[in-house]
């Protein structure tokens, strides 16, 4: 298996690219061949992921494994350096899995205008970027992968989106472009400020920002913060998200929610915290503040929605608030919870968007006022919605809980920070956050249950009484069952994730004494 | 004669040429004004060359004279072309492209 250790990550990142090339060379008329090729490519990628899972040394989860470190752009000292550790692994696998499921879901659900070739090609390109971001260990490589995802998503929203798609697509792109420009600038600053002049994350993390004046560090961290916060998205940089989600085609929303949002939070954990720990200490109370604002604010906005997808989109803002709160505590509890929260949110919100897409496909509307009685017309779909809602509101025993509760828990006792917000008492600051976040869980239950009530419960509205509503299709089942199973499995036995992450997270948090 | 006197002459010629370029409506006159400016440069070069005993200034001037000839040739061709198409050598009337 030695060759596998060396090649696994390269394969994981570039098999989709090969698939993409293959898809491009198949004439558009051969739809079946295109679909099969794309599916095979994504499955092969997933198989590599399974291989990585099997071969991963879990007792050394804190160490980078499957390292590839080859020359890439010597001129700027950027290297083709990739590796996985316990933080990357779950997200990498999640991304591989979601791509497969999305392709399966699309099988008979290609959005209009009907063009499976382009659609699948874009999904595969997305896969390249997503997988690459999670394994890159070089800042420039990370940046490139981080940006690769923009183009396919831009086209996905812009071509296959809803009526307001152009606005949403451009907004999405500009926001993230703006963020990543600042991020790149920060990377360069890190490069030149650190005495080693390197883009290698492990070295930079070891270096830990020593020798950089704290003011400069805070400034550079600010750049990283904006870049990542926009992607997360954190309040108040979130406004691209509802539009993008609302307009995007189902699969686009799913990938956006499940994977793309994780890139930002992952960036915080992987890059911002380890490389600039002193600045992280200074920024943490503010990040925490924005996180709890997002929790409450996102929830309140949810309550005002009539559009199902838009509601779910705002719920992402709220849920990512918990993730960010966990990160802001700089403790191993918090960061573990954040990684878990990312995976859980990926599975759950991904599924929610799937279901919302299927509802829209059947009823041709997402207006919750017009919907109702889904449980009567399509009971299975209704139950899946109900299940996902329960998972999303953080019901213990399902995956969502393990991202939420430990994050709240961690806010009780954050790592030693530079200062707090209220009269400088960091403990008080974060304990206030804790209470606010806990209140957020009630609001979450509120908006999700109200959505469930309006969509699934009650009687069927007159306009749809005589419409034939097909219950869950085969392709939908295949796409959803893995998610359902994972949500339950992770909820019942959370150590599935925690035992992978804890080592790597300890590496991050030990700098902060947590 | 001092070097400065040549330089002032050259500057004066250059400005005169520039004024001609700006003020003349007739394309041919504009071309002649340009010629004036280039010759101002030549005076400069030759003057420097003479005062510093460095021959490359004069070589430079020779090159400029040659190239100026070519430029004016092209310029005249363009003005002619415009005259043929617009039946006027007036540069005022050349303003289709804008915005």
């Amino acid at each position, binding site marked *: 298996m030695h060759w596998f250790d060396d090649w696994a990550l390269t394969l994981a990142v570039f098999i989709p690219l090969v698939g993409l090339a293959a898809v491009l060379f198949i004439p558009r008329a051969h739809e079946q061949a295109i679909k099969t090729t794309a599916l095979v490519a994504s499955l092969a990628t997933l198989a590599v992921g399974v291989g990585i899972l099997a071969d991963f040394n879990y007792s050394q989860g804190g160490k980078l494994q499957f390292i590839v470190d080859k020359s890439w752009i010597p001129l700027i000292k950027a290297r083709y350096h990739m590796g996985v550790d316990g933080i990357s692994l779950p997200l990498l696998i999640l991304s591989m899995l979601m791509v497969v499921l999305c392709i399966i879901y699309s099988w008979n659900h290609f959005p209009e205008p009907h063009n499976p070739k382009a659609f699948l090609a874009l999904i595969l390109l997305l896969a390249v970027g997503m997988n690459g971001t999670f394994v890159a260990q070089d800042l420039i490589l990370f940046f490139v992968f981080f940006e690769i995802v923009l183009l396919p998503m831009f086209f996905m929203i812009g071509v296959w989106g809803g009526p307001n798609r152009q606005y949403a697509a451009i*907004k999405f792109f*500009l*926001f993230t472009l703006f963020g990543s420009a600042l991020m790149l600038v920060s990377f360069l600053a890190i490069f030149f400020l650190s005495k080693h002049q390197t883009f290698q994350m492990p070295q930079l993390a070891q270096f830990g920002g020593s020798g950089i004046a704290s003011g400069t560090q805070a400034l550079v961290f600010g750049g990283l913060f904006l870049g990542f916060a926009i992607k997360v998205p954190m309040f*108040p940089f*979130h*406004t691209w998200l*509802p539009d993008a989600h609302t307009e995007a085609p189902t699969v686009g929303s799913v990938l956006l929610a499940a994977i793309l949002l994780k890139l930002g939070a992952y960036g915080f954990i992987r890059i911002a915290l380890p490389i600039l720990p002193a600045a992280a200490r200074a920024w943490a109370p503010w990040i925490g503040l924005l996180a709890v604002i997002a929790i409450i*604010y996102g929830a*309140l*906005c*949810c309550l*005002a*929605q009539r559009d199902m997808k838009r509601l779910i989109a705002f719920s992402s803002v709220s849920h990512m608030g918990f993730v960010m709160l966990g990160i802001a505590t700089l403790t*191993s509890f918090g960061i*573990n919870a954040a990684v878990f929260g990312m995976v859980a949110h990926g599975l759950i919100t991904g599924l929610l968007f799937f279901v919302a897409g299927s509802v829209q496909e059947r009823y041709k509307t997402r207006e919750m006022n017009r919907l109702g*009685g889904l*449980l*009567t017309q399509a009971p299975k779909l209704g139950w899946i919605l109900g299940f996902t809602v*329960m998972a999303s509101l953080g*019901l*213990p*025993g399902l995956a969502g*809980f*393990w991202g939420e*509760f*430990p994050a*709240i*828990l961690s806010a*009780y006792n954050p790592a030693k920070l530079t200062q707090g917000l209220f009269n400088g008492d960091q403990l008080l600051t974060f304990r206030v956050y804790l209470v606010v976040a806990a*209140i957020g*869980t*009630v*609001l979450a*239950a*509120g908006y999700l*249950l*109200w959505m469930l*009530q309006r969509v*699934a*419960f*009650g009687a069927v509205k007159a306009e749809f009484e005589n419409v034939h509503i097909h219950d869950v299709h085969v392709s939908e089942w295949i796409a959803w069952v893995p998610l359902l199973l994972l949500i339950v499995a992770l909820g019942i*036995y*959370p*150590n599935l994730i*925690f*035992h992978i992450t*804890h080592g790597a997270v*300890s590496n991050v*948090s030990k700098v902060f004494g947590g | 004669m001092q070097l400065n006197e040549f330089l002032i002459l050259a500057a004066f010629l250059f400005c005169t040429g*520039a004024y001609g*370029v*700006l*003020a003349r*409506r007739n394309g041919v006159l*504009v071309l002649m004004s340009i010629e004036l400016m280039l010759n101002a440069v030549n005076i400069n070069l030759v003057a420097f060359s003479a005062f510093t005993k460095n021959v490359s200034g004069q070589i430079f001037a020779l090159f400029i004279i040659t190239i100026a000839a070519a430029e004016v040739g092209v310029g005249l061709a363009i003005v002619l072309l415009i005259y043929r198409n617009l039946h006027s050598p007036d*540069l*005022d*009337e*050349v303003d289709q492209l*804008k915005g």
Partner: protein
Amino acid sequence: MLENAWIIPTLPAVAFVAIVFFGKRSPGKGAFVGIAAVGASFVASCVAAGQWIQRVDNATGKSEGLAAFTKGVVSAGGAHAVQPVTESITWWQNGSIKFGVGTFVDGLTVMMVVVVTLISLLVQIYSTAYMRGDRRYTWYFAALSLFTASMLTLVVASNTIQLLVGWELVGVCSFMLIGHWWEEPANSRAAIKAFLTTRTGDIGLMIGIIILFFTVGSFGIGATNLYATSGHAQHAFLLAAAVCLLVAIIGKSGQFPLHTWLPDAMAGPTPVSALIHAATMVVAGVFLGARLYPVFFNGFSIGHGGVNAMALVGGVTIIIGAALAFVQTDIKKVLAYSTISQLGYMVMALGVGAWSAAVFHLFTHAFFKALLFLGAGSVSHAAGHSFDMREMGGLRKKMPITFWTFVIGSLALAGIFPLAGFWSKDEILVNAGKNGYTAFLVVGLIGAFLTAAYMTRVVYLTFFGEYRGHEHPHESERAITIPLVILGALSVGAGLVNAAPLGLEKIKDWVQPQVAFPHLNNAAFDYPKAILSVSIALAAIVIAGYYWLRRDELRAFRGLTERNALARSGYQFLVNKYYLDYLYEDIIVDGIRGAVARASYWVNQHVIDGVVNGLGSGSTRIARYTYDVIDQRVVDGAANGIALETDRAGAEVRGFQSGHVQRYALVLFGGVGLLSLALFLINIH
């Protein structure tokens, strides 16, 4: 079985999965699977109980329990104390610290598992008849199984996280079951209300657990209790945790002021109500209080007399619950308020240091409250699915079994000697008095009076007089009556478990923890007080009975609410449930959903997004300006301006308004000239 207590919750959980996936094709459409699982669970619970009793009885002089008590918890109750049995496996980890999931079995646990599985078993049997023909019959049994499993998980939890898991699952199951008939918007509204209200309380649980974790350093229940009793506990943190947990209890156990969901929860099927009120949902709060009692005891400094929050909440709830029970016309709602009131007794008992009394009351209450609900269900099942007492009456003859069991339940609830309720309620009152909480003793007595009175009203309205409905009532079938009879028997006999005058104090012996527990002195049986309370109850029955029997003749009272403004407003106050629902639903909930949410969204769309769009349109505007004005006009305009200036200077330049090319040239020269000058000046030093 004590080591393998995980089997007890697992059986119904497996049944849940089995019913969901195979229920429709299995015999009894899933009902049999559920009954079999919970039955097996019940057996296992009984075995566990037996083993525990044996263990306690053997414990004198032996210390074999010590080895089983892990996680560094050492005995605090002397060498001979019986240790709980804990088992644990790694569940999740953080850094190098591993957190377990497992079982914590002691007397309280075994008592609870027996009660929960028994009630659940009876309810499921009852449901086979009651729910027959329901369109989601199979799903109903699946949900009941999950409900039971969740409650059992909570009960056997070895740590607070697991307890939280069970707690939330119980909540969601009650959501599903209350909203079982979700076609009616009212039902799903009630379900959501129940869920949200209890979840509001759960904030307290969550925060309480977190405070305890960071104070104690462990989620373990044993460790937490040991810490709380250790003497070096930080009182401030315990107090904070106790307050938070009390909020959780208030939410879950329907205590004032978060009790309003409980009556609405009657929207669910009646057997579910029985389960919720007797065994699974609402008693979780009281169980929490009992489980982590040292935290409350030391946090609230219970046992030092005076008033503490816990006792106060319980006491207030007793009265307000009982008072509301008077004005209900729906039989289930009366019972619901009665539950609220009875739970108030338990919470108050905990608050006044009467731990074993509280647990004892939980135990007995489970039986008679389940009995009453199932009885009410039986009535409505027979009388056209109505719970409105105005449409009942005179059912005494038509449904004798239901009638007699219901009367037993009512008497037990009213605390009439020698039924179960008497013993437990009496113990609460005695201990309240003994521990110096005289005020709460009085409250308890008033409560007893009210309880007896409103139950008399219910019994009268339902079973006496003439039948006022339009159906043909008849006795229910055996699947319904057998549970009633069993529960009736238990309502009579369960009190003997801890009948002090008879020398039976098994709750104290078997159930009360012997390690990591505050030192409590249980009061001896007090005859005067017992007689007093029974007399009060009897008096209430007599007075109420007299009022209802002779109502027509008591003109002074008839129409009192119409004539007397004070009485009317009092009545209105009660009918409107102290306006709490109005406060919660119309002001808080609608406020958040409506005004606050809409305002936030408005801010989002107009302020935050506005900034973004403003930036966008702003830069477009800048672009337009740059292009139209700067590039196309200022450049040109400057040219024109300069041209004008030059124009004045010399007449020759009149024809200067040449074509664009020359304007460009002008700018070129102008720029060059100016910049040269500037550079010259800069570099001149």
